[in-house]
């Protein structure tokens, strides 16, 4: 058992932190939030060149041959920097899913251009309604049509769909239980996008499929037996969100402690008040616990071990911990923290979005309860 990063990971972290500090200023984040497209092509190419997009892919597809755990380190830094853009969609939702379940031919076809930064991917999973991440909530239909398929229906909260080249679309191929993942050309006919306006300024879209033809060869994984694969994608995504979240809360925790040391009231730093000290101590505990539980799940994913339980523990804990951390961070920062003149709001908004994504604490308590045999 080791809870420290390897030297290589530390280096990765440092490089990432430096690069993002340089290129991903809050001004940049703000610009991206306000822009319709939501990312910078140039920045995207930089990340491809740094090897970040391909980091966790095998060398044979042009990747960096590193692990999901290494990717976790990078995601944490991205969370710390509030990085906008389609990295998560392309890599965690798209690329790694293809790597995991795609045929050799599909991998050859999709991964190298993805890794080179030429293609943006995303996952079209959830739909209008209130029960997400449950097979029964998938109503978008892929009808068999002369050996191929035709997809119709509406997906909602699809990240970065408006800029994606390819979509992994989760669709129903049988009335009961028949879930299939399709690789869909995102620019093809019959697909319409509406970018929603969101708290975090990330680009979540409504995607309407109107009789979209998809060749049979674009089935990713097994026909009508895709739900267990979707669950694995959700697990990875949940852990990925945890990584971003620990980057968020780690930074906010540091900002808050610094502020408590600097800000004076009643002729003393507010960090000398016992109540503020205990708030900070509580934040420290939440942050460390969030980090350990996240990395435990990431490590298990990385090792290919079954980890439904550990993922549930991580996402449920990190979501709740994040709420507590932000409540205290705001309380300590006082009024300046609820203005846009201070950076805190970037984190507050993004962390809330991440907390809601891929299952909140209630969702994972239920997942865990099932795992416990309840």
């Amino acid at each position, binding site marked *: 058992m080791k809870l420290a990063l390897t030297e290589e990971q530390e280096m990765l972290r440092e490089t990432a932190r430096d690069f993002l500090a340089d290129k991903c200023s809050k001004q940049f984040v703000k610009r991206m939030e306000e822009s319709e497209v939501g990312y910078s092509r140039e920045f995207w190419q930089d990340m491809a060149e740094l090897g970040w997009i391909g980091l966790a892919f095998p060398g044979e597809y042009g990747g960096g041959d590193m692990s999901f755990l290494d990717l976790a380190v990078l995601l944490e830094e991205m969370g710390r920097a509030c990085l906008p853009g389609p990295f998560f969609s392309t890599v965690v939702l798209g690329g790694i899913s293809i790597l995991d379940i795609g045929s050799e031919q599909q991998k050859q076809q999709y991964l190298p251009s993805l890794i080179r930064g030429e293609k943006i991917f995303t996952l079209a999973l959830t739909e209008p309604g209130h029960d997400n991440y449950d097979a029964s909530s998938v109503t978008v239909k892929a009808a068999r049509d002369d050996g191929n398929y035709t997809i119709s229906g509406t997906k909602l909260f699809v990240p970065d769909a408006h800029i994606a080249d390819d979509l992994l679309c989760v669709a129903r191929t049988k009335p009961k239980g028949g879930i299939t993942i399709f690789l869909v050309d995102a620019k093809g006919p019959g697909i319409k996008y509406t970018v929603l306006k969101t708290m975090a300024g990330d680009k979540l879209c409504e995607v309407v499929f109107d009789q979209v033809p998809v060749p049979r060869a674009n089935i990713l994984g097994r026909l009508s037996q895709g739900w267990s694969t979707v669950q694995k994608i959700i697990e990875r995504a949940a852990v990925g969100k945890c990584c971003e979240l620990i980057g968020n809360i780690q930074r906010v925790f540091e900002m808050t402690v610094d502020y408590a040391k600097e800000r004076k009231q*009643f002729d003393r730093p507010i960090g000398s008040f016992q109540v503020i000290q205990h708030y900070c101590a509580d934040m420290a505990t939440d942050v460390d616990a969030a980090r350990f539980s996240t990395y435990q799940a990431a490590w298990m994913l990385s090792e290919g071990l079954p980890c439904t339980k550990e993922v549930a523990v991580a996402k449920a804990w990190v979501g709740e911990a994040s709420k507590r951390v932000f409540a205290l961070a705001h*309380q300590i920062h*006082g*009024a300046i923290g*609820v203005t*846009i003149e201070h950076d805190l709001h970037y984190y507050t908004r993004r962390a809330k979005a991440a907390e*809601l994504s891929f299952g909140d604490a209630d969702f994972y308590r239920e997942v865990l309860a099932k795992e416990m045999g309840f």
Partner: protein
Amino acid sequence: MDFSFTEEQNRFRKEVRGFLEEEIKRGYWEPTCDAWVQGFDPGFTERVAKRGWIGLTWPKEYGGQDRSHIDRLILTEEMLRYGAPAACHWFGDRQVGGAILSFGSEELKNEFLPRIVKGEAYFGLGMSEPGTGSDLASLQTRAVEDGDYYVINGQKTWTSCASFSEYFDVYVRTDPEAPRHRGISEFIVDAKSPGVSRIPMIDITGTEAWNDVFFDNVRVHKRYLVGEKNRGFYQVLHQLDYERSGMERLMGNYPLFDAIMQFAKENELSKDPVIRSKLAQLQIEFEVGRLLVYRVALVMEEGRAPNWESAMSKAYSTEFEKHVAGVAMEVLGPYGQLKVGSKYIRLRGMALHSYLGSKGYSLQAGTTEILKNILATRRLGLPSS
């Protein structure tokens, strides 16, 4: 003990509701969270004033109605229930008028109270400064005597409603040599005075929630000194107790509270036992908080200024409001993150607005930490730390 309202009080409540429902029916405005502080609607204020509902508890000689604090609480409770845009007159009605009434000269009372009552004088507060958050006595804005005038220089911040304010109730240092608590005075400053300028500040919800207000050699006649010179700190403590005492701390986001309950019912989310239990818990907390706020009004009704009682109700209530916003976001799930103007928006974006805005609820008008300090020392007699 008696938990009922008199028939007259019930009638009054009904009257207020009737008025507000009619307003909504006519499309004058729609229920909005934080409308008491962010809903600027001079027409609404005018109509409210016409009914005699501003300065309700003030003596008739200044245009008030001499009504009870319970009546006033009924009035504000209903305003908040319907999310009415009462920001123009709220500060004057809630606290500045009261400060003038308690400490001001006869001249000041006659100049301002009738105008507040008529909805013709909108007030903003000039308390906080960039360096003075909870530590109000450390304020640096200076006023120097010059003949019949004082000349004010400095900066105030976190001034709510400032864009609309016609007057500011400003606390300034008039004796820099005295101990910090003993050199502060209170002035009414006309916002149109030369040298007054405002810069809006955008909050986390994207609202222009506050202004920085700058005073650059602003000349104010001595008659606008409220109360005694250098006694301003004691006056501001008194005023803060009023600022904390009202139902707006519990019901600032009541439109959301109401809407999320309806939404859960209509979408059968309330059948989910976990959500059901969370919403019932909110209802419990609301009912309990309401009693804590009514207690404050009863204290005022006894002729006492609200004191630790308003510290208690405010600290409790803002936690409740934060809880409402948090639960609403959980119930809405991904829909909660949508902003006004987005497709698929739910509850007109109230959950998100309130969720983000609620981060400041427990900071305004005394942080929860300050309020608990007050409870510990003023009510419990614990020794200062």
